[in-house]
């Protein structure tokens, strides 16, 4: 009969499914991968970032973000906002121009591509004739000036992209006015930069690559001034009043030039090599900012002494006698200065320096003494150390949330208190329904706590586990401490630091109990730390225990890394999560599973050798169980046994390098003995090809056996209060599932609270289940009498969940990579199963119970399994009947790291890494959807270009008097964001707790 009961035949259920499930990729959190261009509109107060994959992202006030993708997926080379418009133009590396605009649609703004255009030269002209190198959107908003490699400047009408041929500025026209003894035709090759006169829109400054600079009168179509630079030109910048401009050069110098009506060929006012006298790198961009007190800010990128600091990525700020070279850990893509946007203002009065580096965004407050960095509310560099694991906790109680924020605020004292300067647009998304935390574990042994409630993934608190251990790197060895008279005055900024001192510190598993504030983290060298939240910093000794998972297994030798050395004596911990127990597994293999029961005060951990249970109240190891198969050598020897594959991959990468060398040589064309090399390389290629042909891609078909490697690898651990031995008495139990398809169940005896310290916790093995298909067990779950998954520890105690039904019979759900199986309890017998791999050829990668609410009625919700397969599909499977509800393609199946990084939330959302630095957020639920929704209003523009931007003037007012808007106001502003509360009373409460904490 069963074969006729196919899913999808019940119309009621089908309707309900539509109300429950819906797939959306909602927002990308983190820092864009491989950024390539930066743009800023002082008018909209929006920033745009372009990437090498052709994406452009716009950011304004927190929560205001837009994303667009160029169809071509080509690198975005330049981004320019059209002055006083909600429009921007992008230039891609295929020389195409794209006009994007922000339009309001359905109550929210949307970023849309309007037009695209590629400049075409006359027939037969070389491609360089139309290769765009410089772009100037004119303040008239009607035309775009395009400087090209050939030296011609084309004029294009907006928004139609019609070329106005009669207005083209050709090199010949320019040279007519320039004395011939100084310039030749070659002087006008390649337009490096175009700048409009700040006061007179009819004049533009044209900078050619070879150093010639021309002031061009658009009205009369002639050059009014020319400036003869001797050095190769990199960039130009006008002073605010238009009386002077500054040019920067390839040799690391910058030059000031006067612009006056009486001298048509002025000499430079001042020529400086800031980091001379030795040869310096190019200064690629420069700003000259005037201030009220007369001392200008000169801000430039590069210019470092070539020999000793040529490898630094720096931006220098000079203001009077103050000079700092901000030193970035990754390449600087571009930067801009936020200054007074009011055209009537007399001075620039710069407020912030915004730098887009390859791996992070750094904003420097130029108004506060010492130029501190500003903590960005978005664009966080998730990968400042590589992410090794993540853990999501939904619906954080307010108390814990406040305590984490307060711990984090103590860490952020070095940051500027300046409000976020890029604040265009209005966030109109509803407040997130609950407080969610995303915890990421990193390679350097840190855990970062992110506010994942809304659109902006914001760092709340950073926890480091390094302090517990003795590592090679001395934490006091601070690279930043440079002496007073150090030259150049480098200062390291930013958080991106991809180098890990010791890979053993890497965090592999995280478990946070949101009710008790207990946190367990486990790492690469078998270390398990249990921590407690403490609002004060403290100095104490971490209790240390060792768990020998091999027990009496003899004759094995661990060839992997050593365990971490611990620090003796008390250790000082800052406020926040402070470790009080350290368990180190022996052998120190990576911890593969972790579970914490905060009510029973127990922590369970597993590695490839076995698992153990530790009582963190009594600080006593309860038991260990070795799961190792005697024939499993691989698990015993540790990661070193993978040398073979490492060798192979090394060989392959060398091969790739060699091959690419060959092709690059070919491109350059053979010269001298290159042909010989080519021949040798060709032969090598051929050999490699043959090798590949000899071994076609094939897959071995073999049944899994007990002897396979890593069968003992503990994949999952689970605590449950259920009926393990008989149906009349339930008791605490610990369940463990291995890679070889074995499930172990241990019956625990936890003494009652009043005798918790006096009697030991006892454990006895009660069951062992060997799944016949031997697939790795990835999830274990107990369903209560109502077929509802058992609540989390302390959930019932906090009145946040119904107490589980202990009357009806419980069921055990075992999820392996291949099947879902429901067993009865206490006598384990198979009740129901769903085969996945045998029927579809896909395997389970991640599985979680998620609660889905209906978007139609508030009172209906159900629990289902959210499953991610190795093909990148997400399936929703009903509980307890294991019926497939719906399937969504989510991640490309080739994106192995994306699939591996996926985490589900308890309410049907999820995150996965789309690049090392970006999480994609998705939602399976119709009810819980966090996506950006914002409006960018076009500020009113009067005829004389005067901006009446309400928020802008407000901001300007705030900035002009930074002292009188007090600490509290700013704090409350930030708290609004963090605590996501609209209740004033609660807000005050938080504020008072915070103040008390301070």
């Amino acid at each position, binding site marked *: 009969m*069963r*074969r006729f009961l196919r899913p999808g035949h019940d119309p009621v259920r089908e309707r309900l499914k539509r109300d429950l499930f819906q797939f959306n990729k909602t927002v990308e959190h983190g820092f864009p991968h491989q950024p390539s261009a930066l743009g800023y509109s002082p008018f909209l107060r929006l920033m745009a970032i372009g990437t090498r994959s052709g994406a452009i992202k716009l950011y304004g006030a927190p929560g205001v973000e837009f994303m667009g993708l160029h169809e071509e997926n080509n690198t975005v080379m330049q981004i320019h906002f059209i002055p006083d418009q909600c429009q921007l133009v992008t230039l891609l590396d295929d020389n195409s121009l794209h006009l994007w605009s922000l339009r309001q649609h359905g109550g929210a703004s949307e970023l849309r591509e309007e037009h695209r255009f590629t400049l075409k030269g006359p027939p037969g002209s070389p491609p360089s004739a139309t290769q765009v190198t410089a772009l100037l959107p004119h303040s008239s908003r009607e035309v775009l000036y395009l400087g090209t490699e050939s030296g011609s400047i084309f004029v294009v009408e907006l928004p139609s992209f019609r070329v106005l041929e009669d207005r083209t500025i050709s090199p010949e026209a320019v040279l007519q006015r320039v004395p011939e003894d100084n310039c030749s035709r070659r002087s006008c090759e390649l337009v490096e930069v175009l700048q409009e006169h700040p006061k007179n829109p009819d004049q533009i400054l044209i900078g050619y690559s070879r150093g010639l600079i021309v002031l061009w009168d658009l009205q009369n179509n002639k050059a009014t001034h020319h400036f003869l630079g001797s050095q190769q030109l990199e960039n130009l910048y006008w002073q605010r009043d238009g009386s002077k401009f500054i040019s920067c050069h390839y040799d690391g110098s910058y030059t000031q030039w006067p612009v006056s009506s009486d001298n048509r060929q002025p000499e430079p006012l001042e020529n400086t090599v800031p980091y001379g006298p030795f040869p310096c790198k190019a200064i690629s961009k420069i700003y000259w900012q005037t201030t009220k007190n007369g001392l200008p800010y000169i801000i430039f990128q590069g210019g470092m002494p070539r020999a000793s600091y040529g490898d630094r990525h720096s931006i220098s700020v000079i203001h009077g006698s103050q000079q700092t070279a901000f030193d970035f850990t990754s390449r600087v893509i571009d930067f801009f200065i936020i200054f007074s946007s009011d055209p009537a203002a007399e001075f620039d009065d710069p407020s912030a320096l915004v730098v887009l580096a390859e791996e992070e965004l750094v904003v420097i407050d130029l108004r506060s003494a010492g130029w501190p960095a500003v903590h960005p509310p978005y664009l966080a560099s998730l990968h400042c150390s590589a992410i090794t694991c993540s853990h999501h906790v939904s619906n954080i109680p307010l108390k814990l949330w406040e305590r984490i924020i307060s711990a984090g605020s103590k860490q952020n004292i070095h940051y500027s208190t300046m409000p976020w300067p890029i604040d265009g647009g209005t966030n109109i998304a509803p407040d997130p329904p609950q407080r969610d935390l995303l915890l990421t574990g990193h390679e350097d042994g840190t855990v970062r706590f992110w506010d994942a409630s809304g659109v902006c993934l914001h760092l709340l608190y950073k926890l480091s586990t390094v302090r517990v251990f003795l590592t090679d790197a001395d934490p006091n060895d601070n690279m930043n401490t440079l002496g007073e008279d150090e030259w150049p005055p480098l200062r390291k900024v930013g958080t991106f630091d991809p180098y890990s001192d010791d890979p053993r510190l890497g965090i592999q598993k995280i478990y946070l109990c949101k009710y008790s504030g207990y946190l367990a983290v486990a790492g690469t060298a078998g270390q398990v730390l249990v921590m407690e939240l403490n609002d004060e910093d403290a100095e104490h000794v971490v209790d240390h225990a060792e768990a020998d998972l091999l027990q009496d297994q003899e004759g094995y030798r661990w060839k992997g890394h050593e365990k971490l050395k611990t620090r003796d004596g008390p250790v000082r911990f800052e406020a926040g999560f402070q470790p009080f127990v350290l368990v180190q597994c022996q052998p120190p293999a990576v911890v593969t599973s972790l579970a914490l029961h905060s009510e029973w005060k127990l922590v369970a951990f597993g590695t490839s050798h076995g698992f153990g249970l530790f009582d963190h109240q009594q600080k006593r190891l309860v038991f260990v169980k070795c799961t190792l*198969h005697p024939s499993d050598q691989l698990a015993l020897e540790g990661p070193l046994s993978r040398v073979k594959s490492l060798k192979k991959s090394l060989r392959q990468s060398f091969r790739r390098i060699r091959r690419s060398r060959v092709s690059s040589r070919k491109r350059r064309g053979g010269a001298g003995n290159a042909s010989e090399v080519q021949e040798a390389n060709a032969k090598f290629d051929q050999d490699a090809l043959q090798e590949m042909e000899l071994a*076609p*891609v*094939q*897959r*071995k*078909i*073999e*049944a*899994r056996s*007990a002897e396979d490697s890593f069968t003992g690898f503990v994949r999952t651990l689970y605590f449950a209060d259920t009926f393990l*031995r008989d149906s009349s008495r339930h008791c605490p139990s610990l369940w463990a599932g291995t890679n070889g398809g074995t499930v172990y169940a241990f019956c625990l005896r936890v003494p009652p609270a009043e005798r918790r310290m006096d009697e030991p916790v006892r454990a*006895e*093995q*009660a*069951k*062992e*289940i*060997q*799944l*016949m*298909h031997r*697939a790795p067990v990835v999830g274990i779950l107990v369903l209560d009498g109502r077929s509802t998954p058992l609540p989390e520890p302390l959930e019932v105690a906090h009145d946040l969940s119904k107490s589980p039904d202990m009357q009806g019979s419980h069921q055990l759900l075992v999820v392996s990579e*291949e099947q879902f*199986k429901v067993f009865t309890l206490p*006598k*384990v*017998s*198979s009740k129901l199963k769903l*085969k996945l*791999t*045998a*029927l*579809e*050829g*896909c*395997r389970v990668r991640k599985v979680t119970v998620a609660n889905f609410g209906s978007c139609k009625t508030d009172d209906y919700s159900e629990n289902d399994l959210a499953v991610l397969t*190795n*093909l990148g599909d997400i399936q929703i499977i009903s509980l307890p009947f294991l019926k497939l509800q719906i399937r969504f393609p989510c991640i490309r*199946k080739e994106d192995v790291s994306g699939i591996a990084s996926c985490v589900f939330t308890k309410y049907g959302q999820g995150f996965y890494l789309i690049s090392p630095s970006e999480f994609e957020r998705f939602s399976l639920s119709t009810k819980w959807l966090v996506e950006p929704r914002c409006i960018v209003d076009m500020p009113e523009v009067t005829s004389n270009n005067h901006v009446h931007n309400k928020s802008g003037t407000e901001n300007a007012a705030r900035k002009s008097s930074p002292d009188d808007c007090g600490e509290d106001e700013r704090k409350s502003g930030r708290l609004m964001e963090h605590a996501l509360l609209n209740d004033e009373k609660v807000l005050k409460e938080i504020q008072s707790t915070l103040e008390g904490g301070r």
Partner: protein
Amino acid sequence: EFRRFSLERSKPGKFEEFYGLLQHVHKIPNVDVLVGYTDVHGDLLPINNDDNYHKAVSTANPLLRIFIQRKEDADYSAFGTDTMTRKKNVLSNVLRPDNHKKKPHIVISMPQDFRPVSSIIDVDILPETHRRVRLYKYGTDKPLGFYIRDGSSVRVTPHGLEKVPGIFISRLVPGGLAQSTGLLAVNDEVLEVNGIEVSGKSLDQVTDMMIANSRNLIITVRPANQRNNVVRNSRTSGSSGQSTESSLPSSTANTLGNVLQGEEESDEEDIIIEDSGEPQHIPKAAPTSESTESLSQIELLHESTQNGFLPSTEMNSNHSAGSISMECEAPEPGRKSLEEDGTIITL
């Protein structure tokens, strides 16, 4: 190589003498061999004692075909009653391809002694160009022993010939189950795995499906060598033998899938060991069928050593492990080898 010699039908003598004679005739005096014969139904049956030797001689009509295999590389599982279908094919491929419908009636040895290793199934519903092979991985230590690869095959479609991607067998491991059955060969195209079409699935997906079904793997292939195909009698081939290229009608495939699943349910049971801490109850709780099985096993062992015909070794270990586990407490390390399928041991 073939030898032809005569025997006196009325006085066949003892098996040992006959065995000596065979060794002499073939000039292999010191080589251990397995002797088998084909009975009237075309089944390969063993000759390893006086009884079956006499039976063989008495049924000869008039010729007795005897097969001699070297013991080291003999396929033990080729013999016996449970392997009817498979044998049929071994022999039908070699000897008389038109004889597969007949069923033998004679039980030669203890049925427990043998297990099916492979079979051709659903001959009546599949097109002649296809072959559905069932490999019984359980009950043997032999690896499945084959590899698959991506490839392309040419199909007849309404739009003419079309090249479509397909999955092919790329390699057979010598001594593996796949090779020893002789039913699968390199370059055979895999069409279905346990009733599910593989078209549109990636190599990795098909690999996972096969491994997930490895205990009872049913692969439908289009053999690269189409000369050994089963030829049906005229009536059958007249009705369904015409459907050549495309695979089964989907309804058949679905039914098959369900049937297969149903069959499998009973095959695939997990082992559950409940440590109730009262091991003294265990012997009582042991089901009777288990004890009989282990008894028969002992008997069998005895007999087989006597006969000089050894049943497959893996069965030995399985059964002995089973009997051990019933006597000792569960947390013994011996439990590891207790992962015998088809048995729930409730202690």
